[in-house]
């Protein structure tokens, strides 16, 4: 049975619909990431789970009990805010213990709990300091400590890493993952960073303009994006989304891509499924991730449907571990991911391998995935 269940949730601010018919469920101990561009309603959704914002209609249930209408302190949740929201006039220890103090937990119990959390997060030496005397990373830890000490049913995180510098962000990301593996508490985590979403989540919900675009495991989201928005949003560098035509050829369908100053490139699909057949002779959007577009030597040997084509390389971007090459297909720039030591330079024509197992196809009108 699902542990956190959001059903048919709507949220309006005045006349404006901010969240529209959201349905999400997650199992106990799961790590749900809400991801989407800025302003899509992630924080609003998290705040409705916390009870900080009332919902317009629908329901939210934790462990089988509806919490809609319950005060935030009665929902057995803990929240880490983007700005950390540490009480500036209290010490670190005071911040961590404030909730317990309000609930009338005796002093010696509070001390014990503070010490335990401080040990987990290694902030024991900071307990007597005020938040203004802490670095960004330390504040972040204290904010997590304040949540951990409650030992809630659900943790809510609102972009907890977005105020940290890049290096620290990666470290803290790993640490949050480790904490989750250790505590096994259900987490709902908001971010606009798709890499954070991919690395942390057991389930991802992609939002755009208050609509749930797709809900699934990171692999589902990455490999079978429901629409062009999800395909484009998740993954870095982003998926190549190219205008193409499907044409019948010998042995099945061909994806035909226009090329500048050359005849169109035709890629035969060996494993075409039925849905795609209906689009034979029509315009489609062909989606291929950079790592599925490689030099022939670096292509996935287990791929069932590989196609090769000669392409003119326009730009080469060595990135250390890989080399990215930019060519032009279907009227758009296309990024291919080659081996780091691929001998290639701009202006050169070279053969690229398309792993069509990993390719996805979209209807250009509805933008939904066909196959």
């Amino acid at each position, binding site marked *: 049975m699902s542990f956190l269940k959001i059903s048919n949730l709507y949220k309006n601010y005045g006349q404006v619909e901010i969240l529209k018919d959201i349905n999400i469920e997650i199992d106990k101990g799961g790590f749900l990431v809400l991801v989407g561009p800025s302003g899509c309603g992630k924080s609003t959704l998290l705040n409705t789970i916390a009870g*900080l914002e009332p919902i317009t209609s629908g329901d939210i249930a934790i462990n089988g009990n509806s919490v809609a209408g319950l005060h*935030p302190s009665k929902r057995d949740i803990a929240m880490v*805010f983007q700005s950390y*929201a540490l*009480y500036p006039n209290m010490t670190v220890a005071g911040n961590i213990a404030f909730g317990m103090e309000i609930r009338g937990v005796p002093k010696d119990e509070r001390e014990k709990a503070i010490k335990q959390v401080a040990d987990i997060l290694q902030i024991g030496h900071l307990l007597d300091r005020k938040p203004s005397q802490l670095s960004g990373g330390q504040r972040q830890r204290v904010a997590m400590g304040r949540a951990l000490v409650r030992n809630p049913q659900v943790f809510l995180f609102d972009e907890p890493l977005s105020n940290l510098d890049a290096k620290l962000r990666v470290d803290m990301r790993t640490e949050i993952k480790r904490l989750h593996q250790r505590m096994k508490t259900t987490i709902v985590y908001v971010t606009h960073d798709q890499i954070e979403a991919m690395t942390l989540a057991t389930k991802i919900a992609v939002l755009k303009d208050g609509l749930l675009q797709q809900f699934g495991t990171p692999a589902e989201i990455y490999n079978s994006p429901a629409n062009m928005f999800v395909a484009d949003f998740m993954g870095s560098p982003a998926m190549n989304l190219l205008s193409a035509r499907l044409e019948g050829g010998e042995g099945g369908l061909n994806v035909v891509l226009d090329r500048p100053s050359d005849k169109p490139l035709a890629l035969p699909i060996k494993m075409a499924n039925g849905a795609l057949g209906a689009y034979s002779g029509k315009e489609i959007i062909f989606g291929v991730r950079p790592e599925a577009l490689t030099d022939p030597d670096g292509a996935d040997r287990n791929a069932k449907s590989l196609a090769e084509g000669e392409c003119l390389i326009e730009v080469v971007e060595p990135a250390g571990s890989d080399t990215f090459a930019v060519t032009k297909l279907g009227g758009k720039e296309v990024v291919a991911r080659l081996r780091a030591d691929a001998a290639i330079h701009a202006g050169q024509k070279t053969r690229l391998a398309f792993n069509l197992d990993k390719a996805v196809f979209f209807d250009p009108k509805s933008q939904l995935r066909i196959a």
Partner: protein
Amino acid sequence: MSAASQDVATRNGIFARALIYAVLILFAVYYLLPLYVMVVNSLKPLDEIRQGNMLALPQQWTIAPWLSAWSTAQIGVQPTGLKPYFLNSVMMVVPAVALSTILGALNGYVLTKWRFKGDNIVFGLMLLACFIPFQIVLIPSARILGMTGLAGTITGLVLIHAIYGLGFTTLFFRNYYEAFPTELVRAAQIDGASFFQIFRRILLPSSGPIIVVTVIWQFTNIWNDFLFGSSFSGFNSIPLTVALNNLVNSSTGVKEYNVHFAGAILAALPTLIVYIVSGRYFVRGLMAGAVKG
């Protein structure tokens, strides 16, 4: 060559600076002159003042006018000095300032962190209170004080001052709390803190600068008020400003200018002290809203 021009520049700089100081000193003297006249003449016997030289230092120094102004001068018909009225003012100002500041802080808290439908209209109406000339409300206020049985009492004056200060105190606190991070309030809500707990434990400890501003503002206005004091006070609740007026206008006998000067300084002393002690915080508090930490 360049050394010479630098020399000229330096000399010009010194000249400009001297000019600035001269002007500033002139203005300072201009502003301080009345105070000087008051202090000097309050320390002279009356004969010396009659000789006509207001600016001269006393030939014979005396604090008798001060003692007289404080405890024996004729105020209206009673030879009580200003002392009882000074106490009246204190008993009026302290609760009125406290009440209006606390209510203003609560209003600011609600208007920024517990927003409700129409909150901006409520705030607009409260702002209006800052612009209403007090003369307009004299008669309705008198009626209400009469109906509640508070006419002529210090409690009545406290009430009137607290209510008419509320517009300003609400404005001060609302603008200050507007910049206060709402996430802190939300964190405290999740921690289970109640409406008043959040106010007391989270907002108030960070409100030092704006409290200072509000207290100075309210203290000065209420202490210096004459209109409400003269309209609503009774025999036992006359505030200092009104008493000072009565002292100066007492028609019996000769005009004791030295006593009047001493009385005027006594009346102004508390506000002066408040400014000297906390003026720094006043400026800092006014700036605090503008520069977010």
